[in-house]
């Protein structure tokens, strides 16, 4: 009995052990405008500064790495309010304590140009520079289980399309299992998250990321989360295309919508819906995110950043 009690107390106390700071990635305050034209939705759920990333810090803790992202304004916490016609509560869906943003970290762990992936998660609308192609992605999202499930579905669906394009119709169970497992190998959706004021902290196990190294580089991108709109059809009217393909990313559109980011030019389909990204020193976020070509079907390209180690 006493041993069980001690075990429970240890499990509670383990996370309390403070970690050592490893590194910091800083980002200018006030640059939550994406390409420079991106505007927040005209909605009470968003206000200028809400998605303005100020810094990302990493701490070494027992069993992995604790990341801490700081924003310019206090993080909006999900209220207990009904968000659809069946009575779903926002705080039941966004159980982690935030609901307005996704924070993606693409980690280049091998430092080898051309090694890794240059794509980004669905809906983000950008590519990664091959020089810092990633091996691991950490995606902090309000509904990690939903996002993980959704990503697996997208991967399987695309495999089915690819298979059909090759004249075959059936995707083998072995391939399906392998694809599902590969999502877990390369993409991690944190579930141990805490929100305090302007800061959100999340734990990434060493079993996924390993021990951070000074040679690693990071692409950090903040996007709007589509968790409310995904669930509330009343606020989802002007969605263009299949919302599920955007992996809970709030898209960008023309004008000044209430349920998407505004500021796009008509048919400017490659304007990325990213609000704030960390770019290398000497580069301007507006230039980086605006460097796409819709006519040539070329997305903007983000380059990894080396962290400043403490």
């Amino acid at each position, binding site marked *: 009995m006493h041993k069980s009690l001690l075990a429970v107390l240890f499990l509670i106390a383990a*996370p309390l052990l403070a970690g050592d700071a490893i590194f910091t990635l800083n980002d200018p305050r006030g640059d939550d405008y994406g390409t420079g034209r991106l505007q927040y939705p005209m909605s009470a759920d968003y206000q200028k500064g809400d998605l303005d990333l100020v810094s990302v810090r990493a701490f070494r803790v027992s069993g992995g790495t604790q990341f801490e992202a700081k924003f310019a304004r206090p993080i909006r916490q999900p209220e207990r309010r009904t968000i659809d016609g069946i009575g779903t509560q926002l705080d039941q869906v966004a159980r982690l304590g935030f609901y307005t943003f996704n924070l993606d970290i693409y980690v280049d762990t091998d430092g080898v140009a051309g090694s890794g992936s240059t794509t980004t998660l669905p809906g983000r609308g950008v590519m990664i520079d091959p020089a810092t192609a990633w091996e691991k992605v950490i995606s902090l999202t309000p509904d990690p289980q939903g996002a993980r499930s959704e990503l697996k579905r997208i991967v399987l669906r695309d495999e089915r399309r690819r298979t059909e394009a090759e004249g075959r119709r059936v995707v083998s169970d072995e391939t399906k299992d392998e694809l599902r497992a590969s999502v877990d190998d390369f993409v991690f959706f944190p579930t141990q998250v805490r929100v305090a004021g302007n800061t959100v902290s999340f734990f990434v196990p060493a079993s996924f990321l390993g021990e951070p190294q000074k040679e690693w580089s990071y692409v950090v991108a903040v996007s709007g989360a589509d968790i409310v709109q995904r669930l509330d059809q*009343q606020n989802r009217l002007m969605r263009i295309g299949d919302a599920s393909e955007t992996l809970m990313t709030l898209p960008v559109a023309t004008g000044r919508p209430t349920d998407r980011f505004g500021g796009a030019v008509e048919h400017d389909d490659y304007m990325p819906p990213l609000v704030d990204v960390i770019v290398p020193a000497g580069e301007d976020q507006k230039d980086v995110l605006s460097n796409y070509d819709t006519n040539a079907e070329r997305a903007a390209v983000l380059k990894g950043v080396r962290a400043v180690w403490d």
Partner: protein
Amino acid sequence: MRFLRSTAILLVLLLVAAAGYGQQQQSTMNISGVTYTKWLWGNQRYDGSLYNFTNVPGEGWGDNGQGTEIELLVSAKPNRFLEVSGRIHSRFSQNFWTNFGGFGGSDGSCGDGNGGGDCGEFDSRSNQYVKLRGMTVRVTPGWKYMDAVTFGSTDLGMFDAFTMGKIRYIDRDNLNALMAQGSLTDNLRYDITRISLPRLWAGPNYGTGEFASDDSAYGLQLRWTGPVVDVTGIGQFVNDVEVDAGDIIVDDGRELTNRYENNVYGVKVDVHPSGPYAFRAAYYYSESNPNLTLTPAGFGPNGYSPVIADDVSDNAWKLNADITDPFGNGFSLNAEIFNIGADYLSILAARRESDVLLTEGRDATWAYPGPSNASYGVFGGNATRIGYSGWQGNMQQVATINVDNEFTDFDEPAAETVIGWKGFTIVPRWQRGNLEIAGEYTKIDYNTNWQAWGDPTRAIDNTIYPAAEIAGIGVGNPYRSAYAPFQDKTTDIALVRAKTTLNFGKGVDVFGKIKTIQEEDKRMNDARYLPYQSGDCPGGGVACANKQNFYSPGLSTGGGNGLYENPPVITVNGVTGYKWAPFDDLSDDDRDLDYMMFQLGAGYQLTDVIYGSLIYEYYDADLKDGNSAFQAYRLHELASGQHEKNKVIVLLKFPIGGAEAGFNYEYTFGEFQPDFGSGFVVQYADATTAKNVGVPVGSPGFAGRYGGWNSLATREFDHQHLKAYFKVRF
């Protein structure tokens, strides 16, 4: 080897997914939809509709049945300046699967809206009718000073819960308005709107009169956003007019006369420097001016209207401080001081789905008077609707008496009025790793603490205040009742809650809470208001003399039009005495609540997609809420006694691609041991009483002034209900 193959597959597929992003935005028109299927089950065996609760006349409530709603969404973007959207939506209402498509006529049992979906093919409640909803045209002209002009539906989400708040009634965008939004400078934004005033509820007597089509509200909001300080100013002007009945010459048109005016002004300041300290202040001032020749000029003790029957003005304000981890040790503090005037009135303030105060307030399981959550359970035919369990969770606070919890199920949040509240809340919070511990202490005093409705020159049954179910009755407080004829009340709320994740398996979310509410209400605290003269009822089987006591010339709380009446002398089983205790002491109506609740729960990701929770809650309330002389103002079940309530809740969530399934089962059981004091002869329920109010024949109790029955028997409650749903987007 497997690693390499997986890598290759994943990278290719993600490339496909990313490329698809640019190809999905060619469409300019979109038709989509969602369908909700709901399954209700409960042991109350009501089947009046597929919602657990409503007060709306003619609408039903229930806890059993299966049904389906469909919502078709149509949106188009004819050009880059225009967006058009709308929905066609059916309602659950009484459209049960068992209707077999809604064919056939009514069997005549659906008049009160609780007829179990058999109103037939020609009744909109059960013929699967669909309605146009949310029709909106948005123009985004791209002008420097104007971002958008909106015609049609809106949820007013851009405004403010104290002035023009979110107002759901089935939909969240029932309101229709003309609205312009834009920026005057980089930092100064504006919203200006003309709202067509909802005739259903937005005025005295829950309406806007006979000539409703021109009734309107104008709103202006200016928001200045700076790096450290945000300032918002709001003005709202409601104008409800009628055709002047005195203008009988129609040749030159007809004049209008005012029915109701409501002007509200507000200013909010939000200071948020980059450090750990942030401060917010909000001040609102309202003027409410009903035309008393066209609207109710007064109410009895339980009047129903969202508007005070007089020209009134008042203010509401609050100050907030948010201190986030100033010492880097995980300790944070939120504090709030608030003062909501008794006469503060904004007819368009948020009616629900907002939470204007920091406190978590009372618990929603006790949202209605009486032990069983009955609306008027002391009389027959007014049995509980939502049931003994009430709603789940704690109440949300809204700054209006026009609270609306209509068409909700037990798993949705319920709202309560905070009109008249003043006090403060402190919420310390400590977070470290996965552990969060938070507390709350709230002290509430009331601007509605008064005697004889605050005006001893009026008769006690003629007040300007619409009290609805009357404030302060029962374990909780009737959710839309801010006023009582006599009140001298203070409330203290204290709680500690904690949550963490234990590193078992995928991580077990564990959470718990312990909460106490201490509430005292002396109600009548001045002997001048006692209904009868001292010694009027001598006891010993001697009849009362019925000599009234007058608090003002000709005005008494006793007698025919008063709140209280002396009891007759009766004999039951050889015992002779008063039918109920005479109201002869100021303590006869005293309220003293000693309340505690305890919650412990755990949640776990059972599979990749299924998240489950198991929650246990225990409630214990030791309540003195007046004695048999008080009789809960003659209207409600007396709730004095010992209450124990237990809840076991099982929750499951199951998202599957474009669909979501959910399951919420709640088993509530408990006991109420009445204690109505002494000084009366115990009576026993005859067959008629037993049938009317649902008690055993021969069980003890007493009949009140109007024949309502208060049972003295210990009541054992056993309430189960569940809600399961399946939601599919297509």
